[in-house]
């Protein structure tokens, strides 16, 4: 299969189908509706089921049901709809059910608008729902990367029995780029002996639940969840470093903003400013290593976000006081331009005594 030109939302859908997801439950919301529409056309072709749920809440709970049976299943939404899924997501974590949940972020808070944003960073990384948990969050920056990370998302979900979030901004969902779906060498297969599919011949009754009335019992469950999170932190950190080796300044950005920032960096490099980029690909677990490796050399980090400043907290935690952390952000659906970011670089580079 050669390259095709597709919308980001459609790429997510096709990539999911490509890695064996045959079940999708979702509810329309701009700017991710193409994903839902694509699934409606595509899944019947592979003998799967697309179901438009009556709400995001129903969708996430249908996902819970389907995931209980052990199949690969997905839902997707955008900010307000994602907020509605918080209880369900917490249940998926508690019951340890694998699923992939997509959030194509738009301007908030409230109804906001339908322009691109990254202001759900906190919501997706810090456990927007109740209880002690973390969820792996993957943030692709290009349509080709969507293909890779959608595959990774399903694998991680199965491997650790956990929901995984795929986060993109509205821009990523709406844009078109050439992508290629390569044959997967060998599909990771996970035994799902825990699945509730009826007991015939399988040793019988199994229970999927997140309830544990006994406090000690629930604490045990929680520590075992925490162990799992620690394992994920060990194994599933993803990031890209760009020209950080000699950098005086390091920009930090993810998703499409990282691409815009890269343009600005290229321009700054041309003008002799030593600036690099750390692009977190997994937002949780947040990549601490590239910061630890650089934080004693660089003059400053600059977190660039389509938000009023959320990821900057994780940057500051990773830098832990070793260097100043600055911020440039646009919010409410405004996308920062490379010119603005370049200006910011210039200001900082000028403002800090070299």
């Amino acid at each position, binding site marked *: 299969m050669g390259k095709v030109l597709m919308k980001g939302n459609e790429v997510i859908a096709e990539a999911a189908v490509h890695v064996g997801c045959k*079940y999708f*439950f979702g509810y329309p919301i701009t700017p991710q509706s193409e994903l839902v529409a694509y699934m409606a056309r595509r899944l019947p072709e592979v003998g799967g*089921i697309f*179901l438009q*749920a*009556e*709400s995001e*809440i*129903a*969708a996430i*709970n*249908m*996902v*819970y*049901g*389907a*995931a*209980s*049976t052990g*199949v690969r*299943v997905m839902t997707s939404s955008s900010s307000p709809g994602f907020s509605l899924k918080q*209880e*369900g997501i917490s*249940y998926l974590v508690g*019951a340890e059910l694998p699923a992939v949940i997509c959030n194509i972020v738009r301007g908030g808070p409230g109804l906001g608008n339908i322009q691109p944003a990254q202001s759900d960073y906190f919501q997706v990384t810090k456990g927007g729902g109740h209880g002690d948990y973390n969820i792996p969050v993957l943030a692709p920056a290009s349509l080709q990367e969507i293909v890779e990370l959608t595959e990774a998302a399903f694998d991680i979900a199965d491997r650790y029995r956990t929901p995984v979030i795929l986060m993109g901004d509205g821009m990523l969902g709406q844009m078109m780029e050439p992508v290629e779906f390569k044959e997967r060498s060998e599909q990771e297969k996970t035994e799902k002996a825990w699945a*509730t*599919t*009826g*007991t*015939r*011949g399988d040793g*019988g*009754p*199994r*229970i*999927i*639940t*997140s*309830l544990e009335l006994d406090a000690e019992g629930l604490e045990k469950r929680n520590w075992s969840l925490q162990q799992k999170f620690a394992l994920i932190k060990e194994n599933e950190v993803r990031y890209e470093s760009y020209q950080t080796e000699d950098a005086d300044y390091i920009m930090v950005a993810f998703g499409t903003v990282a691409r815009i920032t890269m343009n600005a960096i290229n321009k700054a490099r041309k003008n002799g400013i030593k600036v690099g980029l750390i692009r977190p690909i997994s937002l949780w677990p947040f990549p601490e290593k590239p910061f630890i490796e650089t934080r004693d050399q660089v003059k400053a980090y600059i977190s660039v976000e389509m938000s009023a400043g959320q990821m900057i907290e994780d940057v500051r935690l990773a830098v832990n006081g070793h260097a100043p952390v600055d911020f440039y952000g646009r919010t409410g659906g405004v996308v920062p331009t490379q010119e603005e970011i370049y200006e910011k670089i210039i200001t900082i580079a000028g403002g800090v005594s070299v």
Partner: protein
Amino acid sequence: MTMKTVFKKTSGLTDKPTHYCPGCTHGIIHRMVAEVLEEMDILEDTIGVASVGCSVLSYEYFNCDMTQAAHGRAPAVATGVKRVLPNRFVFTYQGDGDLASIGISEVIHAAARGENITVIFVNNAIYGMTGGQMAPTTLIGQKTATTPFGRDASLQGSPIKVCEMIATLDGAAYIERVSSHDVPHIQKAKKAIRKAFKTQKKGLGFSMVEVLSTCPTNWGLDPAESLEWVKDSMVPVYPLGVYKNKEGGEN
């Protein structure tokens, strides 16, 4: 003298003693569902969905695969299961708070979709588990923790008649209201439950049995008085009978 077994505990239930209060009819309804599954020989092909309410732990009592749903969302969870496993039997077991209050949307849409699942709806006119608050099915005048002066139609509205409402949906294939307040009614209730699973077996669509049930603890009545209260106070408001029957045949 040889003895023939007239009644013994069904293999559809586990051996775990229930946590229900003395005399609570949740136990009777559990037994009937479990017996039907055993009698239809579909225990091994069934996935039950427990809801949030006193029956949340029903997953420990039904002797089949069980999954536990968030408050009110059991029909959505059941939909997820059934769409993946159309050849299995899927049922939900939900209280009136769970189904008629927070979960009314999920049950209506499951019915509207003609989702081929069976809903066991246990209406005890109150929130049992959380300590006796008003349910949508609480009777006018009934005192609860949140209607300390008795439910007043002008403030809290009138009871929702779920069967009547759901029967207006084309996707609803079998809808019946039964009661658990005495042995003849219990026998009728079991027939209705069997009918509902048969409807599912035939793939006719959504089936629901509403069972009028007790909550001695939160009603402040003893178990026997509670059965009386179902008969005298609930049945007149919630007429028993079949509201939809695509399966046909006698009841």
